[in-house]
């Protein structure tokens, strides 16, 4: 690859980075608009992660449960067969 090509690729990458930063600045300055309550709630929900500790606690709790032989979810997933 020639030095000219390298130069052009670097310049292009820099331009893309600047454009992304500009876009981010614009978003930070203008904030975000939601056209409905549901849209705002969905955006909020999408940002929420379930703390991993919940799954860990649940696994521990299920280990103390009597074995069910996996029957209930077999019944669930065989519905419609």
């Amino acid at each position, binding site marked *: 690859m020639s030095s000219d090509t390298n130069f052009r690729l670097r310049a292009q990458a820099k331009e893309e980075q600047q454009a992304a930063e500009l876009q981010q600045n614009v978003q930070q300055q203008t904030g975000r608009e939601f056209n409905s*309550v549901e849209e705002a*709630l969905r955006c909020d929900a999408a940002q929420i992660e379930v*703390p991993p500790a919940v*799954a860990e*606690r*649940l696994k521990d709790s*299920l280990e103390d449960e009597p074995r069910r032989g996996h029957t209930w*979810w077999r019944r*669930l997933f065989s519905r419609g067969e």
Partner: protein
Amino acid sequence: MAESLESPPAPPAGRTAWPDTDFGAIYEEHSRAIYYLALRFLSDPTRAEDATHDVFLKAYRKFDQFRGEANLRTWLYRITINHCQNLLQSWHQRTMVTNVDDAVWASTPSSADSPLRVLEIKELGQRIQATLDAMSDEYRLLLLLVADEKLSYEEVAELTGQTADAVRGKLHRARKAFATIFKKHE
């Protein structure tokens, strides 16, 4: 609301927190929705964690009672709502909290049709929580359920013990109340 009961839902790619079991797949599929409902309904992350754990444990224990007439998400929501309402009821009794009168917000003049704005996305959660906290349990629950695109109005009506028409009527007022309060927190 297209939730297939005929094949096990595959866990989302990239998740490794749960062993590769069917119950794990159910947890991965629904835990975010359950946690979000509990979080915004109870307004307390720690209690929401406890509630999510308890809901899935109850679901595991009571699965024999699941009749398949509702989809799994709806059934889990029903357990969550009962659980959270019991918690709120005992908490309200201890703290003598009186219910918010939604009519106050519904009658407050506001530009409910204009967009809801936040300056930064990171403030959205705080604004939404503050807004929901100022609303009645009924309106708060309705809005949270309707925001889940996997639920139909009929399912929301069933979960809240009323007709779909009643849900539509109340939703109109709940949205207006939400918009009014949300804008007050700007």
